[in-house]
Structures are given as structure tokens and as C-alpha cells.
């Protein structure tokens, strides 16, 4: 493992499988009456959020607290940042207070990379989403969810997603989730297909390790998992698609389309969902949809990442495995 987690592309297959396996161990902590490990006692983690994202921040915070870290939440709104302080000064101020790791969410692509590589600070840097670049813990929790559902909770240990067919649908152009997933799923041996209107696929996508299709109906029967991305309504004002209705008709997932998926196939969404846009309520609320599981798995994955980056060599959890139900 490297010192930082900036991009899903930085992870080797073995790194990624280790994180997923460690997350399974962490998940078992959630089944205990006391959901806490002493691993990061005395370590300080700051959640440095320049963009609003309550769900990601809470997920990291829960993970940090379950590992007994001291947690500082820093939101750029109403702070010195809104008065013009630079990223560098903010980070150095926090480090001077004795921070061991910085979990950063930033609107500018590359901001976590700059923080990790510019010699500004020594702390570990974990990317919690940067611009339209990367969101590696999201990709890890998605892969974790897929492995559990498609391979098995215990059967999946030590294994990757070899040969699984994953379809990612929606605003790929503006999506750090799509970029992270393409990188990680490819590393884990899955076959990825992106489906979107051509306006929402980046120029240069041809070098990505995936297929691109404009036809959702053709791809659905060949998918083991279908991940729907959020599509912001404002995009239609910039002529990415004509109307909300036309988008839904061509690229939204409704009950009829879901019925064309193989029986074992799951529906995923990184949240927040725009019901009626990319996904209907019928699909979102069906038991094939893993949205809520993804949230729970997010905490386990973030515990695993924090533990592996910060925790050293001690085993995270010492008890034996519970059997799969």
C-alpha cells in the first residue's frame, strides 16, 4: 500500500483485494454490541471538506470513530477558506495542530494529489472526491458490494471480480465515480461498459479500459450489475440532452428495463438518487437495488482504508469469522 489514497488507478489488484478482505473483517465489527476497535487510538484524522457532502463526511466520520481516532471536521463554508485562505495554508494550519491524516473533498480535480505531493504537509492524504477526477473509496465500496452479491461474502474473500460484466450508466463526463470505478473494476478483472448519451462521454474515452455504448437496452441483458449515475437536471440547460423526459426514456432505469437484466443482476447507485430522472421509484425501492447496502459498506471500506494506511501491521480484528448466513 502507498502512503496516500488519491486515485483508484494507484491500487494494484492485490492492494484492492486486501482492502476488500479487510473491509469484510471490519464489517463484522458492526455486528458486535460495541462497534469499536482501539486501532487508531491517539491518532487524529481531519475531514477537510471544501464541498458539501454530508453522506461521505458522515461515512468517514463513522469509520474514524469506530477505529477510535480523534476526529476533526473542517468544513470550508464559514471558515477562513471562504475569506480567501489557500489550500496550502489551510492544510499547514491543520498539520501544525498534529493531524495524522487528512480526508479531503475538494471541487478542484487534483487538489488531493497536490496536497500529497507538493511538500506542503507530511500527513496521509485520503481522497474523498476531487472535482470530476476520482473518488476511490466510492469505487472500493462499490466493488465490495459487487463481490458480496455476485461472488459471496465468504466465498469472495481473496478473490476479485474476474469476468463480471458491469454497466455504468449516466453522466460519465462529470463523474468521478465513473472514472474511479472504471479503473478499479478493470484492475479487479471485471468487464466494464459505459452507457450514456454521446454528449456525456469525455473526448479521449477511447483509451479507457472499457467499452462504450449509447444503447442501454442492448447492454442490460449482458450485465451482472448496473450502476446508475446521478444526472443533474441543470445539464440539459447546457444542451447535454434535450429534456429530462427524453433522458429518462433513453437512459433511465425503470421496471420494464430492469426486467431485461439477468435474474441475479443488481442495480447500484452512488447516491444521491434523482428519482424519476435516472431511476424510477419502483427500481430504487426493489430488493435488487443495493443503495442502502452501499452506504453500510462504505463505512467498512473506509475503516479498512484508514486502518491499512495508518494502522501499521497489527491485525485489525482478532476474532474468527462469523459464517455467512
Amino acid at each position, binding site marked *: 500500500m502507498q502512503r496516500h489514497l488519491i486515485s483508484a488507478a494507484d491500487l494494484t489488484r492485490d492492494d484492492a483485494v486486501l482492502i476488500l478482505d479487510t473491509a469484510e473483517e471490519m464489517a463484522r465489527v458492526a455486528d458486535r454490541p460495541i462497534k469499536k476497535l482501539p486501532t487508531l487510538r491517539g491518532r487524529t484524522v481531519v475531514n477537510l471538506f471544501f464541498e458539501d457532502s454530508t453522506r461521505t463526511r458522515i461515512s468517514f466520520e463513522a469509520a474514524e470513530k469506530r477505529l477510535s481516532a480523534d476526529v476533526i471536521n473542517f468544513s470550508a463554508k464559514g471558515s477562513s477558506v471562504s475569506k480567501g485562505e489557500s*489550500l*496550502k495554508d489551510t492544510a499547514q494550519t491543520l498539520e501544525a495542530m498534529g493531524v495524522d491524516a487528512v480526508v479531503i473533498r475538494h471541487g*478542484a*480535480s*487534483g*487538489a488531493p494529489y497536490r496536497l500529497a505531493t*507538493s511538500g506542503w504537509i507530511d500527513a496521509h492524504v485520503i481522497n474523498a472526491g476531487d472535482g470530476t477526477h476520482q473518488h476511490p473509496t466510492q469505487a472500493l465500496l462499490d466493488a465490495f458490494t459487487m463481490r458480496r452479491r455476485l461472488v459471496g461474502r465468504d466465498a469472495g474473500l481473496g478473490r476479485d471480480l474476474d469476468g463480471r460484466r458491469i454497466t455504468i450508466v449516466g453522466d460519465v463526463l462529470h463523474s468521478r465515480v465513473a472514472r474511479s470505478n472504471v479503473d478499479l473494476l478493470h484492475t479487479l478483472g471485471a468487464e466494464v461498459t459505459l452507457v450514456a448519451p454521446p454528449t456525456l462521454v*469525455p*473526448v*479521449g474515452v477511447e483509451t479507457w479500459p472499457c467499452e462504450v455504448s449509447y444503447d442501454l437496452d442492448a447492454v442490460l441483458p449482458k450485465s451482472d450489475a448496473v450502476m446508475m449515475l446521478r444526472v443533474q437536471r441543470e445539464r440539459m440547460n447546457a444542451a447535454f440532452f434535450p429534456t429530462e423526459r427524453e433522458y429518462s426514456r433513453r437512459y433511465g432505469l425503470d421496471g420494464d428495463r430492469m426486467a431485461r437484466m439477468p435474474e441475479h443482476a443488481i442495480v447500484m447507485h452512488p447516491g444521491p438518487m434523482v428519482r424519476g430522472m435516472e431511476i424510477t421509484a419502483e427500481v430504487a425501492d426493489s430488493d435488487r437495488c443495493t443503495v442502502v447496502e452501499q452506504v453500510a459498506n462504505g463505512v467498512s471500506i473506509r475503516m479498512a482504508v484508514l486502518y491499512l494506511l495508518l494502522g501499521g501491521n497489527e491485525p485489525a480484528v482478532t476474532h474468527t469469522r462469523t459464517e455467512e448466513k
Partner: protein
Amino acid sequence: MSKTLIRGAKVLGGEPQDVLIDGGTIAEVGTGLSAEGAEVVEAGGKVLLPGLVDLHTHLREPGREDSETVLTGTRAAASGGYTAVFAMANTFPVADTAGVVEQVYRLGQEHGYCDVQPIGAVTVGLEGRKLAELGAMHESAAGVTVFSDDGKCVDDAVIMRRALEYVKAFGGVVAQHAQEPRLTEGAQMNEGVVSAELGLGGWPAVAEESIIARDVLLAEHVGSRVHICHLSTAGSVEIVRWAKSRGIDVTAEVTPHHLLLTDELVRTYNPVYKVNPPLRTERDVLALREALADGTIDIVATDHAPHPHEDKDCEWAAAAMGMVGLETALSVVQETMVDTGLLTWAGVAERMSVKPAEIGQAKGHGRPVSAGEPANLTLVDTAYRGSVDPAGFASRSRNTPYEGRELPGRVTHTWLRGKATLVDGKLT
């Protein structure tokens, strides 16, 4: 008047000769010239060129003296072998009146390191709506002949047409910063494979090419000449090549950085590589070199764009666009064009002195190295190789993309009308 004898210099890279400067003029060029009464500079096989002329410099004064002033910028120019620079109009206030251009011109004259020829804005406040008083700027003491809204594109086709027509009355030229604004909203880097991966807003080649195509057609229609600033793509080269073959009066410049660097460097997210137009691909770089060699691109211009440290010591999206270039330009051209065999030193002189002086009508610059001509000269140690150390720059800013990079060539002497502005690599 003082005399200087430059002994054993390869004039334009040819056989070693002696050059005698008397006052502000070249008195004699030959072999075995007498050193009597003259200070002697032993050239020892260094290459002597006419003083370089930069058609595209940002001196930042007035308004952004924290990044550069006319004094620091012209010292940087002398260090890089330049004897004349054209100062872009995007200052604060904008150089859109006779008053501002005269101020910049006068500062250059007072400091005496390098002639400063102000460029006037095409439109008031660079806003693209209303023509600035182009005639008044031309008639002023600054004698403006080049007009540009550089930093912004004159994107309104009617305004561009009128500007092209209007400056014909006094032989001016419009230098276009070709960037279709709607196609480049939120643009952060070249649009392509790398931007797709990095998640940075794309600046597509077509945003440059479509404006160049329009402007060469406009120039043809109204019978004007047009100059294209910092051409950066292979497609732009094809359009300019086509326009020239059709007889359209178009000239074009390329920056040193677009001859050497590619968008792969953006993977570092280090804003020192953030520039407008953005670094392009290897294919573009090779096309630009070829076009500069075959004359499709007429000149090298630096687009020297100083920025204070804090404007680059930040995340990519927050950083300013631009690189300093005056003090490294000749080295980059040697690396990319001379050492690759694409250009001779005579070819370099043509593209970095003769032609830019001609396009901008800089009197007394870009002249032959021969008796009776003004002694604007640059002596280059072409055998030198060394790594770039921004700490040694004369520019007030350090935003160079070449820090630590080994480059060939070093300017050791510069003379402005016979007066040494640089001696043994040190400013006078």
C-alpha cells in the same frame, strides 16, 4: 564613442569573424580586424545573432507590478538575448489609450535594457465590443502598429472584420488570440486522452482552429493582414498552410513551450504547466516544429507571462495561466529546432529576430549583421549545457516549467545599439 571588437564569432553560425562596434553601429565585419582603441570580447566560436525580438511579452506594468515591471521584464529580456519586446495590452488599466501605451513606451526607453514597443488593445477594456482608439495609439509617441486583445479572443466576427480593415489606414496588424469562448468555458487543459483521465475541463483544438479559419477568410475578404498568436495545434498549422498557399496575408507565431512540452505533464497537477493555449499532444508538438522549419509558422514568440508564486502554489483550477519565457526561449529553440537539425542558426535569426521585427515594424531591429547596421546583437554559447535555475532569473517571477531541466545554449552578451546590456551572462 566607445568601440567593441567581438573577436572570432560565428556570425549566424557561419565561419568565425570579427565584428567591430563603433558607438551604436556595426563599423566593420571581417577577419583580423584591429582591436586598437576597442574593448575586446573573445567570442571563441560562440554564435552571433541579431538581437532577438519578441512579438509577445507580458510586462504587467501598469497594474501587476508584483509579478513584473517594465524594468524587471526588460532585464529578463536582455538576459535572454532580446533587444526589443512587444508588450501586450492586458495591463491594469488596459493599454487601450494613447496615455497607457506612451507610459509603457517611455518606461522602456528610460530603463534602457531593451526597446519596448507597446501593443494596443483592439477593443476598449479588451471587452470585444467597441474598437479602442487604434489611430490615436498609432499616432502617439509609442507609434503602435500591433493591436491585440491577447488573453481574450476578438470573437465577434464583425468587430474582427472592422479591426482588420481599420488598421490598414496606417499599416497596422491585428494579432489574434484564437480561442472560441463558448467552446472553452471552464477549460483547464487540452481536451483529449489526458483531460478525460484527469477530470479537468477540456480546451479543444477546434476552439483555436475554427477562429483561425474564420480570421484568415476575413483577412482575405477585406484584403488585410492578420497575425495569429501562439498557434498550438497541428490543425491550426494545416489551416495557416492552406491560407498561405492561397495568398492570404497571414503570419503566425509559436511559443517555445509549445515546441517542447506536452499535456502529459499535466498529470502532475502542477500549475507551472498551466498555460493558455494549453500544452497539446506530441503529435501537435512535432507538427509545430515542422511548420516552424518550413516557414508555415513565421516566428517564435515567448508569451512570457509572469505570475507571483502564490498564483501557482495552489490547486490546478485555482492557478493562473502562463509561463515566463524570455530567459529560456533561445535554449528551448536550440533544443527543439537546432540540435534536432530542423533549423540552422541563420534560420533561428530569421524566426526570432528578422521576421518578428518585420511583422511588428520594429525599426533598427532584425537587421543583417553587417557594416552600417545598428549594433543590436546577441552572442550565444551554443556548446553550453546546464539545468535551469529560476533563482537566477532577472524576471520578478519564477513560474517556469523548465526548473531543473537540462537545456543547451546560454546567452553571454547582448548589445542594444552598441551598449552592452549583458556581459558574460551578467546584466550591466
